[in-house]
C-alpha cells in the first residue's frame, strides 16, 4: 500500500463547508509542496474511516479538484495529483510579495491593526471579485 500523503482536518466551526475545506487543504498542500504530481489522494473510504464526514462530500471535493485540473480520478485505482500549484509570481522572494510587504509596512505605520488590515484586504478582494 502507498504511504498516506495527506490527512484532512475538518474545522466544524469555521463556517466553511466541509467539501471546500478538503479542496483548500489539498491546494494548501500543493502550494507548500507537500503534495506533488503523481501522489495518490486517500480514497473516500480511507478519509471517512479517519474523520467522520459524508463520503459524498469527499467525492464532491475530489470532483472539484478534477474540474480545476489539479487531480485526475483513475477508475478503481484512486485520485491522483496531476498538477502543482503556486505560480512563480506568487512565491517567496518575488516582486509581488515585496510590494505587499511594503504596503503592509505602510498600513502598520499608519496605525492600522492586523484585523484592520485583514478587513481592508478582504474588502478590496471582494470588490475585485464582483
Amino acid at each position: 500500500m502507498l504511504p498516506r500523503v495527506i490527512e484532512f482536518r475538518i474545522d466544524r466551526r469555521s463556517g466553511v463547508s466541509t467539501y471546500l475545506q478538503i479542496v483548500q487543504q489539498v491546494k494548501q498542500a500543493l502550494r507548500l509542496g507537500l503534495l506533488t504530481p503523481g501522489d495518490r489522494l486517500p480514497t473516500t473510504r480511507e478519509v471517512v474511516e479517519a474523520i467522520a464526514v459524508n463520503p459524498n462530500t469527499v467525492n464532491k471535493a475530489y470532483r472539484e479538484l478534477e474540474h480545476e485540473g489539479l487531480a485526475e480520478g483513475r477508475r478503481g485505482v484512486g485520485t491522483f495529483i496531476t498538477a502543482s500549484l503556486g505560480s512563480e509570481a506568487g512565491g517567496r522572494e518575488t516582486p509581488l510579495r515585496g510590494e505587499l510587504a511594503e504596503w503592509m509596512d505602510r498600513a502598520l505605520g499608519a496605525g492600522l491593526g492586523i484585523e484592520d488590515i485583514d478587513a481592508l484586504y478582504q474588502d478590496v478582494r471582494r470588490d475585485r471579485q464582483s
Partner: protein
Amino acid sequence: MLTASGLGRRFGQVWALRDCSFTLPEGRVSALVGPNGAGKSTLLWVAAGLLSPSEGSLRVSGEPVPGRIHPDVAFLAQSRPLYSDFTVAETLRAGEKLNDRWSAEYARETLSLLSGVAPERKVRHLSAGERTQVALAVALGRLPKLLLLDEPLSDLDPLARDETLRILMTDVAERGTTVLVSSHLLTDLAPVCDHLILLDRGRLQLAGEVEETLQAHRVLVGPAATAEPATERLIESTRTGRQAVLLARGVDAVPDGWTATVPELEQLVLSYLRAARASARQ
C-alpha cells in the same frame, strides 16, 4: 429510495405527523431533526413498517412499506431492543437466525471496529453506549439498503460518537447505503449529512439536499431604514433601530448597502423552527 406523500399518523385525536411529502434519494445521509415531540420517531416507525400510516403513503424503493420490516431496511429503535440474557456473541447468532440475509462477518467486523465490546459479555451488563454499538452491529449485519436510526448518538460519549459516525460513513462509502438518522442535536449530524428533513410538531418544515437548500437561502444584513430586498419567501427578520437581519429564500438582487451571505445549516434550521413557532402563535 424513500418517498412520502401526504403522510400522516394519528394517535387518538392527536396527529403525530401530518401532510409529510418528501423524497430521500438513494445513497444520501439524511438528518431527521426537530425538537422533542416533532414526530421524528413516528416517521421512523412508519418507515420501518412497525406503524401504519393513518393517511397518505410511504414507499421504500417504490413499494409501499409492508406491515412489517422490509427486507432491505434495518431499524435501530431508540430503546435499542436486545435480549438482556444473551451475550454479545449470542445476540449476533440470533441476528443470523432471524434474518434471511445476514453477514456474520460484517456484523463482527462492525463490532470490532468499535472500542471493545467483548463477545462473551451479557447484554444486561453493557453500558448504554455499548448496547447502542451492539444494536448497530445487528442492524448493519442485515446489509440494509436503507438504514433507519433513532437517536443513535444520544447515549454515547464523544469518543464513541465519533467512532459510530465513522463506521456509518464507512458503510455508506462501501455499500452506498441510504441513511435516515434522527437527532434533536443537529451539531452531531452536520458533518455527516448531505440531506435534511426538518420536522416541528408533526409538520414538515424543510426537506432537501443540504448544499442546495443552503444555496437557495441568504442572510441579508442592511440598514433598517431602507426598503427590504425583494425575496421569494421571507423566513425570519429581526431588526434593531439601525440594522435589519433577514433570512430569506430566493434572493435575486441585493440592493446597495446590503450584504448577502449563504447561511450555515444550524442558523437555517433555527430560523425555520422559530418561524414555525411564531406562525403557530398567531
